[in-house]
């Protein structure tokens, strides 16, 4: 089962590339939802069945697969923005950067003092690669929604690492974290709406009146 | 001894105007004139003391106090100076500081009195007086400290009696520098040519004389007398330094001193005759040069 989870992580990394390379907003939202769903399934593959597990899986699937994509789509629709992602840096360079980061993630993971049972798994490199993808999206995309997506991918990367030690995080904390994440995204969604109302655009490059002369 | 002190005081009080007379006579001689008699300054003073006074209505008591305080301070300063080989009337360690500061006090009142009239010319003269005097002060103190160091004493009397032919032989260069600097200081302090021309007829170029324009009668007499006394006192210092002649005999020493003073007056007269008054902006340069000379003398001695 662990090896199957490993295969799924390859898929997660592929989705990273899709998000970096895609120019259409709706597609990217779908991709991040897919990534969320995959990540939601993985705990079920790793651990024996329990009520705790079920609750977690269900809530992740619900949040990342349904609620958040819906919120984002809703924001896109309400904002009536052009569908493009509008990067600061072109798609190809970001893709290349993503590839370099992914490669580096593998190299880096090799050098980490991992526990013996985690040595040969893809979890750590996938986690780092996803994290870096989130970072790339955050820093290279202009639209506020893209940045939310970047943040989500970042969270996903962290989540993958968290899969290594589900025991450490008791249910309450995990639920709390998830809830916080959800509320955070929710608030972001609201803010995007307001940004849109205020500026008639969600292009964050407009958001730079606050700076030092 | 008692006689000596009495003579000392009498010389102090009576001789100063004579110096002016000698200077003027020398200058007249250089100009090919007969000149006023040697005792003309005494006649002038006597006349002034008899005259009535005119006071400017803008003046206050400071104007009246000016000549009085100046003369009193100069008199007290005169008591601190040895004449030739004869010790000063009052002598104690550190009297040279008081000596210098008494002139400062005198200057404060002279210049204040000048400012009291509200006349632009007198203010101008006062400004020049204080400024040039300020530049002379360091020279004076360099000379004093060098002498103190040479004579290992802190009082004017031993300091000034100290120079002897032997000293001149040992430290001739330093002594020469000192004497030169002191002569410059002497001329500057007493407002003689090349610093100031007491006989000029244009107020704009004067220093001392323009300050006292408004004084009249007895007050002006006091001022003239005070100026002569100052010349006498500083001249005495100079003579002590420049002519290290000592016989030990009371009478010979007195005669030598008086002769030297008269000689000094002639020297000043010669200088005044052969030199032109410096441009005002050159004066500070000469004074600073004198300061440097004296500082150099000090370095030669302390090294």
């Amino acid at each position: 089962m662990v090896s199957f989870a490993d295969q799924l992580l390859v898929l997660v990394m592929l989705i990273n590339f899709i998000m970096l390379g895609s120019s259409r907003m709706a597609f990217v939202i779908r991709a991040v939802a897919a990534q969320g769903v995959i990540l939601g399934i993985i705990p079920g593959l790793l651990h024996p069945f329990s009520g705790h597990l079920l609750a977690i899986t269900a809530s992740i699937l619900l949040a990342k697969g349904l609620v958040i994509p819906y919120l984002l789509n809703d924001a896109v629709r309400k904002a009536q923005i052009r569908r493009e992602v509008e990067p600061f840096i072109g798609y190809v360079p970001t893709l290349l950067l993503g590839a370099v980061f992914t490669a580096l993630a593998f190299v880096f993971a090799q050098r980490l003092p991992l526990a013996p049972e985690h040595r040969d798994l893809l979890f750590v490199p996938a986690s780092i690669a996803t994290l870096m993808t989130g970072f790339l999206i955050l820093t290279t995309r202009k639209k506020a929604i893209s940045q939310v997506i970047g943040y989500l991918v970042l969270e996903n990367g962290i989540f993958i690492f968290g899969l290594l030690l589900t025991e450490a995080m008791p249910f309450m904390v995990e639920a709390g974290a998830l809830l916080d994440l959800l509320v955070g995204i929710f608030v972001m969604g609201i803010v995007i709406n307001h940004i849109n109302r205020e500026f008639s655009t969600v292009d964050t490059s407009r958001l730079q009146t606050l700076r030092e002369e | 001894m008692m006689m000596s002190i009495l003579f000392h005081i009498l010389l102090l009080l009576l001789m100063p105007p004579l110096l002016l007379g000698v200077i003027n006579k020398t200058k007249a001689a250089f100009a090919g004139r007969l000149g006023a008699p040697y005792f003309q300054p005494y006649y002038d003073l006597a006349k002034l003391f008899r005259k009535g006074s005119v006071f400017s209505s803008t003046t206050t008591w400071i104007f009246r106090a000016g000549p009085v305080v100046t003369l009193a301070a100069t008199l007290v300063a005169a008591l601190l100076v040895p004449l030739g080989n004869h010790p000063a009337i009052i002598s104690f360690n550190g009297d040279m500081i008081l000596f210098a500061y008494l002139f400062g006090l005198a200057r404060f009142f002279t210049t204040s009195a000048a400012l009291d009239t509200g006349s632009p010319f007198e203010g101008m003269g006062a400004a020049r007086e204080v400024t040039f005097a300020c530049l002379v002060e360091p020279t004076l103190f360099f000379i004093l400290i060098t002498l103190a160091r040479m004579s290992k004493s802190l009082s004017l009397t031993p300091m000034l009696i100290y120079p002897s032919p032997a000293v001149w032989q040992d430290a001739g260069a330093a002594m020469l520098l000192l004497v030169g600097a002191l002569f410059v200081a002497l001329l500057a302090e007493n407002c003689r040519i090349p610093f100031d021309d007491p006989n000029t007829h244009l107020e704009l170029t004067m220093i001392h004389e323009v300050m006292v324009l408004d004084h009249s009668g007895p007050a002006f007499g006091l001022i003239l007398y005070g100026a002569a006394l100052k010349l006498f006192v500083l001249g005495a210092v100079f003579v002590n330094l420049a002519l290290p002649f000592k016989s030990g005999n009371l009478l010979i020493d007195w005669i030598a001193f008086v002769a030297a003073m008269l000689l000094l007056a002639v020297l000043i007269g010669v200088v005044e005759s052969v030199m032109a008054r410096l441009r005002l902006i050159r004066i500070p340069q000469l004074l600073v040069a004198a300061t440097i000379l004296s500082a150099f003398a000090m370095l030669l001695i302390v090294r």
Partner: protein
Amino acid sequence: MIHLLVLLPLLGALIAWLIPGNRLRPLMLPTIALPHLGLSLYLIASPTVPVHGGWIWLDPLGKITLLAISSLFAVCAVYAVGYLAYRQERSNRVLCLGLLVCLAAMSLVTLCQHLGLLWVAIETTTVSMAPLIYFNRNARSIEATWKYLLICSVGIALALLGLLFLAYATHVAHQNATLLLPDLLEDASALNRGWLHAAFIFLLVGYGSKLGLAPLHTWKPDAYGEAPGLVGALLAGGLVNCAFLAILRVYQICLASVTELLFFQQVLVVLGLISMAVAAIFMARQHDFKRMLAYSSVEHVGILAVGLGIGKGALFGVLFHLINNGLTKGVLFLSSGNIHRSYGGKTVEVVQGALTRLPWSGGLFLAGFIAITGSPPFSPFISEFSIISSIFVQRQYLVGGLFLLFLAAIFIGMALTVLPMVMGTPRTDLEVTDYRDRMLTVGPPLVMLLVIVWLGVWPPEALLQLLKDGAAMLEVRS
């Protein structure tokens, strides 16, 4: 009893949400905040024991933070009544709700002994603060909110990763991952060095972006500048303290691990100094006094970090400074809020002669400026001097020299902004509002100022004992 600290504000939040009247609702704030303060003081004074399997415990560090937060909030709550009475044009439902939720979350932060729970509480404060920054509802405030939200969220996410690293370090060490502080402290020495370093770095960067350590501080001037003064006070005195407590918790583990403390200390000192330098750079020629206060906050966070890194005698100063900075920032933000309201602007071009126009607020602002720059008889002097003297006692001349240099530069920069504001005569060519000093908007900061003087001249023994206990928890154990 201890649960009430969290439940009481939550209950208040619920009631505030339900109250329909815009006038009545703000009264809910002091109604909750004052009992909360009383409760906090009671709990701080009484000995406490861990509950819930050690998850919840009010230890001295928590007590100090709770004291700072609760007292600041109480003052701000009273002020809010006066402030919101003046701003009836805008619904304050979200504001009251957010404030009370934030109080609950902040109280929870002080109680947590489980780092995961602590993370949750901190994330809650982040999220609940966001709508408050947006109170003014204009383009600038939405921009500030967005920047705040995104940067802090990214930071908090990185902190979560740091937590995972920490848990993984325990996992690697003994196959039994945990995030419970007592457990972590107990066998910290067994932790893998690499993971510990990574965890420390991620947590420091994560919470540091919340705290506002340079160069993670970029949201601060925007958020502080655009939020109402009241919210600014809570950001600077409340959230900063919470985030710093979180870093203290992490640092406790680092201390307990005893492996090469030098790295942790150096990182803290360097980041602290960078923060002070950044503050100095940006305070020079700062025209916007609220942004200036934000940079002052960056500076003081830097001071805290340097003090923590220096350790020993500075620890007392750090913990004391936590309280002092919070209260003094409260004075500054609340009075600057008044000035902002009265002049309708927050740049030095507009605000001149505040002492003439608003004698009380202007005076308070001036006094706050003098206090925050570390002058006696105000208490920040005591704490700053403790830190400085400790630096020099430990012969860290370079650090001390830079510290003083930055302090001087900051003082100059700040003075050149503050003094023209408060002195002189108000401009007559600008539109004036009818806002004037009032009891409810001047009283609270005044009370805070008096407290600062009290703490700076003759602080109560109990507080000093508490600070010493707290400092003892941060001593290097060898």
